[in-house]
């Protein structure tokens, strides 16, 4: 068995189901698995694709075996979108590998689980192309979906909204496009302006946080303090697109929410800080991830975990032996 992995002959790959509340996505669709299943033993957790209307038969037809959860997590390589929880870690064999979105620097407790159960990891968000761009991402979609949700919550006519966007990266870009397409007034706040939010909050209907807030500032520097919310009109919306783990947002009153329960209110201001915004559009996002991950997974599987391509190796963390 181990010998096979080292030689890169045939790999046991488990496609796991997502398990967050109201989460409907699945990491790989049958279409992208067909070629892989021809050379490797690919299993999928029963019912994994149900959320987006793909039943187990479709996987079966592609040569992927629908199996119980325990068997999926016993594979050599486990693939999913969000990180597993401790219960799932217990099902894995030490020395196996998980490939999913990790953001380990922001999540020390998750990192500790990988060490405790001696599981290797491939962080999807760290797989880069030659230009340093992420190869597996839905960043634009995050901004776009989040912004449209914010308009729903605001309830006013989008054309009359003043939208201020903190940040100007990929995620901000999605929000800018969504807001401009609804004819809102769009103002992009630069690095100096975000430190003077007292001044810029007035007159804002929807404030968007799209900052990739540096790790060393998280929890230390707060840009929008609770007392500043007074400057917003009642019913204004704060949209946090980078819903970091608890306590790491540059907006004091933001805490991560789930798809099931996306928004809450603080001092008359609606907050929407979903952890995993792309989950709002499960069909398209699943398809997107599947197209992005399929070829990478095939490369890893064909060459074997010992001979990963350079860009995947950069995303790989080996558990201490």
């Amino acid at each position: 068995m181990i010998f096979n992995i080292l030689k890169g002959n045939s790999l046991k790959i488990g496609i796991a189901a997502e398990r967050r509340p109201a989460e409907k996505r699945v990491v790989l669709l049958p279409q992208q698995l067909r070629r892989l299943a021809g050379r490797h033993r690919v299993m999928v957790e029963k019912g994994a694709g149900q959320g987006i209307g793909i039943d187990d038969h479709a996987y079966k037809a592609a040569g992927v075996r629908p199996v119980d959860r325990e068997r999926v997590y016993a594979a050599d390589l486990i693939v999913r979108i969000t990180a597993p929880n401790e219960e799932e870690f217990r099902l894995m064999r030490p020395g196996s590998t998980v490939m999913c979105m990790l953001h380990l620097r922001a999540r020390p407790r998750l990192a500790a689980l990988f060490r405790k159960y001696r599981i290797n990891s491939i962080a999807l968000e760290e797989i880069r192309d030659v230009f340093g761009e992420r190869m597996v991402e839905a960043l634009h979609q995050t901004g776009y979906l989040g912004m449209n949700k914010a308009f729903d919550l605001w309830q006013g006519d989008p054309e009359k909204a003043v939208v201020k966007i903190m940040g100007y990266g990929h995620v901000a870009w999605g929000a800018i496009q969504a807001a401009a397409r609804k004819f809102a007034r769009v103002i992009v706040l630069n690095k100096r302006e975000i430190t003077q939010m007292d001044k810029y909050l007035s007159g804002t209907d929807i404030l968007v946080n799209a900052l990739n807030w540096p790790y060393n500032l998280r929890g230390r520097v707060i840009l929008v303090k609770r007392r500043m919310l007074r400057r917003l009109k009642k019913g204004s919306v704060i949209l946090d697109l980078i819903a970091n783990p608890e306590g790491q947002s540059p907006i004091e009153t933001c805490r991560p929410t789930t798809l099931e329960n996306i928004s809450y209110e603080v001092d008359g201001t609606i907050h929407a800080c979903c952890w995993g915004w792309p989950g709002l559009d499960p069909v398209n996002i699943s398809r997107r991830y599947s197209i992005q991950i399929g070829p990478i997974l095939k490369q890893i599987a064909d060459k074997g975990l010992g001979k990963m391509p350079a860009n995947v190796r950069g995303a790989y963390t080996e558990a201490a032996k």
Partner: protein
Amino acid sequence: MKIGVAAENRPLEKRVILQPDELRPIARRHEVLVERGAGLGVGIMDWEYEVAGCKVVPRDKVYAANLVVRIKEPKPGEIKLMRPHCIMMSMMHLRCEPELEANLRRQKVIAIPLENIKDPFGKRLVEAVLESGRIGMEYGFKLWGKDPARAMVKIMGYGNMSRGAIQAAARKLARVEVLNRKQFLQMERHLPGTDILVDAVNRPFRRDVEKEQPFVTRKMLELLRRGSVIVDLVSNPERHAPVETMRPTFLSEPFYVLGGIYHTSLWGWPAMDPINISRRYSMQVAPLVKAFADRGLNDAPGPVKKAVIRLDKGEKVV
């Protein structure tokens, strides 16, 4: 396969499509012919290509190859050097260039327009769109001449081109507002107080453009302070720009002043930053050329195969 790497020969054009680092693995299996002096503009000597395993040859030999690669579309004289059923890979924008299409068709050339090579999500694989926005915006600041942190920048449009401009402006701490399609129709309200106006509106090519009312008319220029700047990132053909007074400019004279306002609309913004853009294109194009050369026209990778236009067999441009 014989692969010809042609020199760009527009005035003041310094770029080159493929660089020695990226050509080395290709030259191992194929005969790569580089036009003499092709890389000089970005500081690459002919011998650097030779060390990478390429042959440096005169122009007619380059165009006689099976596959000719360059950035800008070839000129009529160059197309005449090509052999029938050989392949031209370059930016073409054939829909706006019927003459180019006719020339290629007459010579029975197979066209692979670089701008048509797209990934499964429809994203261009060979592009410097974001960079164009950045380069244009930075040039706008240069013309304006004052501290960018004090500039009010308004950007019309919200495509990828605009994204580069937004990033460049925000990084320089300018105030940035993005104007939407309804706001285009009320520019007299949005022009006062603007220091740099950026047009990043990508509109389809229209025939009866004469009847249209431009978003920014000649008269509205009075609403801007003297010394303000209008940057056209799309560099529309004359009279197609949403700014009435805008016409395309070229590297030899990238801007002009009209009514006290700087106008700039470079035909091909990427050419202003030849070194970085050449490097980018080279990294984007090389894997495509390699896969294409290794596997041939029929087994070419999906994105390239979809971009092929068999002009030699009478295929139409859509």
